[in-house]
């Protein structure tokens, strides 16, 4: 069980080829971080464009103003749409925090979906934020009760991703999309491929103690690269030897590698025959 599974952040999608893939939903913090980054880029772009318009034309004359209005509008309304279409569901901010948008059902991410999920930002983010910061822009002289009601509504919209299990914001619901962690895993050397003949060998009885869960814990241990790994090897080696009653002195790492290979060979053979030994208790 991975950490994501434990927190209910895992989803299964079925590709059009009929193979289920595990996808991890993006964390709220990552999404907020990505959004803030994108926002920063947008603001910088807007200011730069305005300065450019001011420098290139006589402001009083009007063309500069026309350009500035259009530029701000384009950046504000189409920044997300443009990038998410060009980069298949990613924006600069999302790239940095390592998230991306995908179709919630596993189909292709369509242009309309991207457009819709980003148009919804208008009510979801801009309207509430404007109201909370400068209420008279949205509704001048709003009575107290209306202000309270609107604030509640604004917060519901802003915090929507926290309220549902799939971390969907309103735009995601309307467009049928979700934001996931961009997958990235590295293929490490195969621990099952023996470099040389095994030094230690084990009996069937000794190998029948552990199951798949323990095998994969051992895999994680053997793949460790930190400074403390030697100590960990020694501790685990002692424990395994006690448990399977393996006599004699051994070199910890060599022993663990051989044990891993032997155990994996046995469990994989069993698996081919349809017997999955989940862990040492089963």
């Amino acid at each position, binding site marked *: 069980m991975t950490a994501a599974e434990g927190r209910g952040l895992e989803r299964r999608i079925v*590709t*059009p080829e009929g*193979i289920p*893939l595990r*996808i991890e939903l993006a964390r709220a913090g990552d999404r907020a971080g990505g959004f803030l980054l994108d926002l920063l880029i947008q603001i910088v772009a807007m200011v730069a464009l305005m300065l450019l318009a001011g420098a290139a034309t006589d402001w009083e*004359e*009007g063309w500069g*103003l*026309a*350009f500035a*209005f259009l530029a701000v*509008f384009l950046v504000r309304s189409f920044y997300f749409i443009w990038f998410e*279409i060009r*980069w*298949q*569901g990613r924006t600069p901010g999302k790239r940095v925090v390592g998230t*991306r948008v*995908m*179709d*919630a059902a596993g*189909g292709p*991410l369509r*242009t*309309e979906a991207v*457009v*819709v999920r980003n*148009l*919804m930002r*208008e*009510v979801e983010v801009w309207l509430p934020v404007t109201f909370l910061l400068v209420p008279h822009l949205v509704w001048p002289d709003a009575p107290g009760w209306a202000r309270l009601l609107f604030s509640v509504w604004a917060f519901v919209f802003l915090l929507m991703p926290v309220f549902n299990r799939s971390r969907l914001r309103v735009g995601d*619901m*309307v*467009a*049928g999309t979700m934001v996931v962690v*961009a*997958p*990235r*895993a*590295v*293929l*490490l050397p*195969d621990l*099952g*491929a023996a470099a040389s003949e*095994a030094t230690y*060998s*084990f*009996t069937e*009885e000794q190998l029948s103690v552990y199951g798949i869960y323990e*095998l994969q814990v051992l*895999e*994680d241990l053997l793949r460790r690269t930190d400074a403390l790994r030697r100590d960990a090897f020694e501790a685990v080696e002692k424990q395994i030897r006690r448990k399977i009653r393996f006599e004699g002195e051994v070199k910890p790492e060599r022993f663990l590698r051989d044990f891993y*290979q*032997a155990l*994996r060979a*046995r*469990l*994989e053979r069993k*698996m*081919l025959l349809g017997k999955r030994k989940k862990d040492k208790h089963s």
Partner: protein
Amino acid sequence: MRGGPGGEVPGLKSTQFRKEREGAWRELERLVDRAERSGVRSLPAEQVARLPLLYRATLSSLSVARAISLDRNLVDYLESLCARAYFCVYGTTRPLGQAVSGFFGSRFPSAVRRYRWHMAMAGLFLLLGTLVGQVLVARDPDWYYVFVDEDLAGGRDPAATTEFLREGLFDGDEHSTARLGAFASFLFTHNARIGMLAFALGFVAGIPVYLLLFSTGLMLGAFSALYASRGLGVELWGWLLPHGVTELLAVVLCGGAGLMLAQALVFPGRHARLRNLAVKGREAGVIVLGAVAMLFVAGLIEGFFRQMVRDQVVRYLVATTSTVLWGFYFARAGREARR
């Protein structure tokens, strides 16, 4: 019973399997790396052709690995590689030019046709607002102040002189074209945001959409009644309609799209509410995007044409022409493509 499994290690099925297939995975990984960095379209043609093949091969490796291998790193790696390749294979969009022509040639008009009753409903609310505004202000000019925002009116209220109102319809000498450009740009961005808001508000069961459309209608009606009372009715509509046909149509489309969302939420029909919302939401998004483009056209007409052309006949001619053009566009465009 020493010996035993230890000797069999080199023949581990999963290790052999990995050895045989690893080349294809690495190749796919390189392709995906490059596609993620600079887009699928940056790949040379023969590599683009390899992508789906390698993707399917790796998917099948994944299902084999799940069945025979207990190497967790291997399964995780394949899973993540498949997901990344999946995003490349199924995330591609058509080239922008083709997407744009496909959009305006067929998707947008046929989406509007499919949901014509929603659009009609939105139009009805606008019309209703106009009528109510017209009748109320015609009876009692004080209503005018209720319906029309002071800033928007800019002094054009019942207290203004007829001369002043007339000037507002036919001024334009002091405007340089550049100023008009700024004006057009401002109008477009302002209206486009209103339109998007009308759509987005559909999420709240549509009530704000009705209010927005109705109040826009009220304003329109109030203006009309005021000018009509000074004998300027024909002139006012000549001033409003050249761009208004396009603009009001676009606002109605946005409102109709908002109603689609509202309907999907309140009456989900056969699907689950959330799924239905997603399906309808995307179609509504097509309509809103098209409407924003229409508002751009309207902004140009409003900013330039209205201020520069002061001839009544030409104004009405443009209004009629744009009505006919839009009518023809929404009735016909993209019909052949769907067959």
